[in-house]
């Protein structure tokens, strides 16, 4: 694997009043890696991610994303990343083409680029027959693949995926992960935040956040070995128990 660092995080801290949501976390993410960012609800992973994508200012510490400082160059950070969340993916009441055009527009693509990308994307995903249909009418799995492709429209160096496959049927999930693998293969970095432990199994490396701190960071295989368990779910259980 490429050892070029694409995200560096150094003692990153975020406080809300007297409450420390993110407590001096440090880690690096390498180019082309699928990095799992795990934690229970309220562990601070959303806060940490918000700082990394430049929409929340850290209280202290540093972080760079694609070489840009998240504190001072937030706008450059935003230009070099893509974002996809399971909760919000596409506008249901726009057609597939309209969605692509819209997102291409907000990412600052030129009209010619949008046209080219749209055609390319529709062909890659085999959406020719439904390109002018409302997104609403698509099955969940297709929507997901489409919104992932849309997050990649502007060829970002890093894509942040927020719980990308929770609640999806196993086959669609596989197809989705294959897309993610393919993208990582091309050199894109994937930063996956999730509290679904089975999503973690697919990542190259995972960090587990508990109460604002990173309690473990390694490949799923090594973590399972270290804690002598069969699944990431059990790793998480052991970690949480140790802390209690």
């Amino acid at each position: 694997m490429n050892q070029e660092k694409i995200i560096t995080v150094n003692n990153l801290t975020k406080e809300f009043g007297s409450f420390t949501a993110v407590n001096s976390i440090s880690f690096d993410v390498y180019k082309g890696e699928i990095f799992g960012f795990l934690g229970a609800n309220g562990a601070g992973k959303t806060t940490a991610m918000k700082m990394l994508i430049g929409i929340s200012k850290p209280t202290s510490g540093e972080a760079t994303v694609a070489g840009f400082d998240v504190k001072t160059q937030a706008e450059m950070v935003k230009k070099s990343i893509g974002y996809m969340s399971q909760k919000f993916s596409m506008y249901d009441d726009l057609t597939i083409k309209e969605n692509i055009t819209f997102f291409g527009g907000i990412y600052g693509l030129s009209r010619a680029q949008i046209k080219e990308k749209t055609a390319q994307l529709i062909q890659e995903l085999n959406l020719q027959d439904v390109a002018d249909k409302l997104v609403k009418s698509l099955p969940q799995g297709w929507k997901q693949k489409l919104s992932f492709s849309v997050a990649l429209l502007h060829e970002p160096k890093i894509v942040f995926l927020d719980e990308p496959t929770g609640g999806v049927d196993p086959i669609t999930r596989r197809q989705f992960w294959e897309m993610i693998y393919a993208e990582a293969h091309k050199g894109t970095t994937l930063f996956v935040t999730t509290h679904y432990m089975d999503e973690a199994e697919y990542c190259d490396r995972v960090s587990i956040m508990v109460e604002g701190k990173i309690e473990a960071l390694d490949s799923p295989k090594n973590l399972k070995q270290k804690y002598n368990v069969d699944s990431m779910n059990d790793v998480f259980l052991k970690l949480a128990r140790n802390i209690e």
Partner: protein
Amino acid sequence: MKLTLNMSITVQNISKSYNKIKAVETLSFAVNEGEIFGLIGPDGAGKTTLFRILTTLLFADEGTASVAGFDVVKEYKSIRNCVGYMPGKFSLYQDLSVEENLTFFATLFGTTIEENYDLIKDIYIQIEPFKTRRAGALSGGMKQKLALCCALIHKPKVLFLDEPTTGVDPVSRKEFWQMLKRLQQKGITILVSTPYMDEAALCDRIALIQKGKILKIDSPINIIEKYDKTIYDVRAKNTYQLLLDLKNHPSQYSVYAFGESIHYTDKETEFDSDTLKKYLEDKKHTEIEIQMTKPTIEDVFMDL
């Protein structure tokens, strides 16, 4: 005490469509008294629709169903008196405290917390220290415990839990299932749905459901044992390339990513893993590991 009290659920040929889209299609199954029965399937499989039909909130287009011996259409009032229901998006009253929420649901069913404290004691004791806190300020796991308390406060005979563990951390999920086991021991029939395949193993019996149809009903162990294909767990340094190459293997039956490895099944009964290893070595893979592995519910689900 009536010994003939029927606490089971029966579903016969239930169908339901929304605007010509079939949400559930001729479903039939029966849940025995005191059983934990799991509906396992992805979002949009029809689980919630089925729950709503059984809790008398929706009419089925076709078919009949009964809960605790009462017909879901004709005797809906009796059902409403004796079931506990936790809907999927159920979020309690955020602006009411833990205790106020519970008191409210107790009075709603014409009972008090004290009267039925026995049943909820194990669960409530864990959230009691926070009883003056607003429900909105509870963590996911605590909210879920409170919701369960609220659904149990009137001593229901049958408990309907629609995706109770979605979005909850693994620790709370594990505790939740332990609570369900204890409730089962108290004789409550539980119908639970979940998108998590790993929770299937915790049910007595499960129905694998997708696109409104039941693919299989059996105990989790039987489902796995009856699976007749041998699954190989294949690993190599470059997972993505491995996936592509395995898909090109002439006798492959199925190839899919499974966590950090790849699950592979072959068409040939005489399959030899060394041949596969050789094939992969020719493709310049390194650190190749091929092992037979036990199928999981998820593997079975994918082959249906």
